[in-house]
């Protein structure tokens, strides 16, 4: 049994992966954040170049068509990536709120200290 290789899909995966790497190099995206997406793209390219593996796995797991298996896995993977991004975003938001509050508390302390110093020096001059 021979399988057609999906060069176009593999090329798209590689192109998107290269685009992500470029963003990492330009420090628009952290490597940690992009790593799971890069792994997904590499897997996508592998599946496109070796479709026999997908078919074998699909039939083993009870899927009638390899394409159904492929899309199911892809949807699950993207859902997982989205959920992990939401978790990360929530943590960042929480930290941002805490930092904003701490900054306000510190700023007020600094302002009060500066005013006290100004008062003292003004009293010293007079």
């Amino acid at each position, binding site marked *: 049994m021979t399988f057609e290789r999906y060069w176009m899909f593999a090329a798209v995966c590689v192109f998107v992966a290269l685009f992500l790497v470029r963003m990492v190099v330009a420090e628009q995206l952290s490597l940690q954040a992009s790593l799971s997406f890069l792994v997904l793209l590499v897997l996508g390219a592998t599946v496109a170049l070796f479709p026999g593996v997908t078919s074998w796995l699909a039939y083993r797991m009870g899927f009638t068509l390899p394409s159904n298996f492929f899309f199911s896995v892809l949807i699950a993977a993207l859902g997982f990536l989205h959920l992990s991004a939401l978790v990360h975003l929530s943590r960042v938001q929480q930290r941002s709120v805490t930092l904003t509050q701490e900054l*306000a508390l510190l700023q*007020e302390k600094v302002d009060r200290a500066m005013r006290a110093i100004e008062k003292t020096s003004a009293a010293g001059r007079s």
Partner: protein
Amino acid sequence: MRVLVVVPAFNEQAALPAVVAEIRNERQRLGIDIDVAVVDDGSTDHTSEVAYSCGARVLRLCRNLGIGGAVQVGLRAALREGYDCAIQLDGDGQHPASEITKLIGALSQSPAPDLIVGTRYRTRDGFRSTALRRLGGTWLRVLLRVVAGLRVTDPTSGFRLYGHRALKLFDQTYPYDYPEPEALAIASAAHLRVAEVPVQMRERQHGRSSISGIAAPYYMLKTTLAVVLSYVRNRRRAVDGEGK
């Protein structure tokens, strides 16, 4: 007794001078050590400058966090600086400072409450909000009664006194948007003693409510979910080792 009055304010430069002056008058009348901290929630007007020129302490948030984030930073300041309690009072002039004495007076109950809510629904006087808002308030009242076992008549009131245990609890966790009913659920879950005292309120003197139009159904849905989830999440939170 040292009290910090926390005044969350977003673009309230017009209302603030009267609010701060009222609190300062009350300090002189009661003879209690009351400080005023205006929390400028990322205002785009001159709220901070006006508050400072009125003699208040100013906690300036570099971005808008919403009412919950603004109140929490004031409560944190009160806890860290060793105040005996903090009073939340809106910066739009809805809460007359003359009613502060009723909140402080409720501290003499035995045992002393940890969180005292000023309610506008126990008396027939004063501003009582619109019919639609009262309907929403009724739903939240029933929800808090059923979910958290808490009897309050005015769950959306932002005129509150926080005792030491409440300050400790809300230093750890405080809801951010539309926080009042959710904060009550958290307090109940953490076994704080919650009390209510009747107070008079006024219509806001300046500005407009953030809960209007399309925000109203979102508020009800979000608050309903938040009350249930906050209660469940905070049931195991221990305050002074009294958590479940």
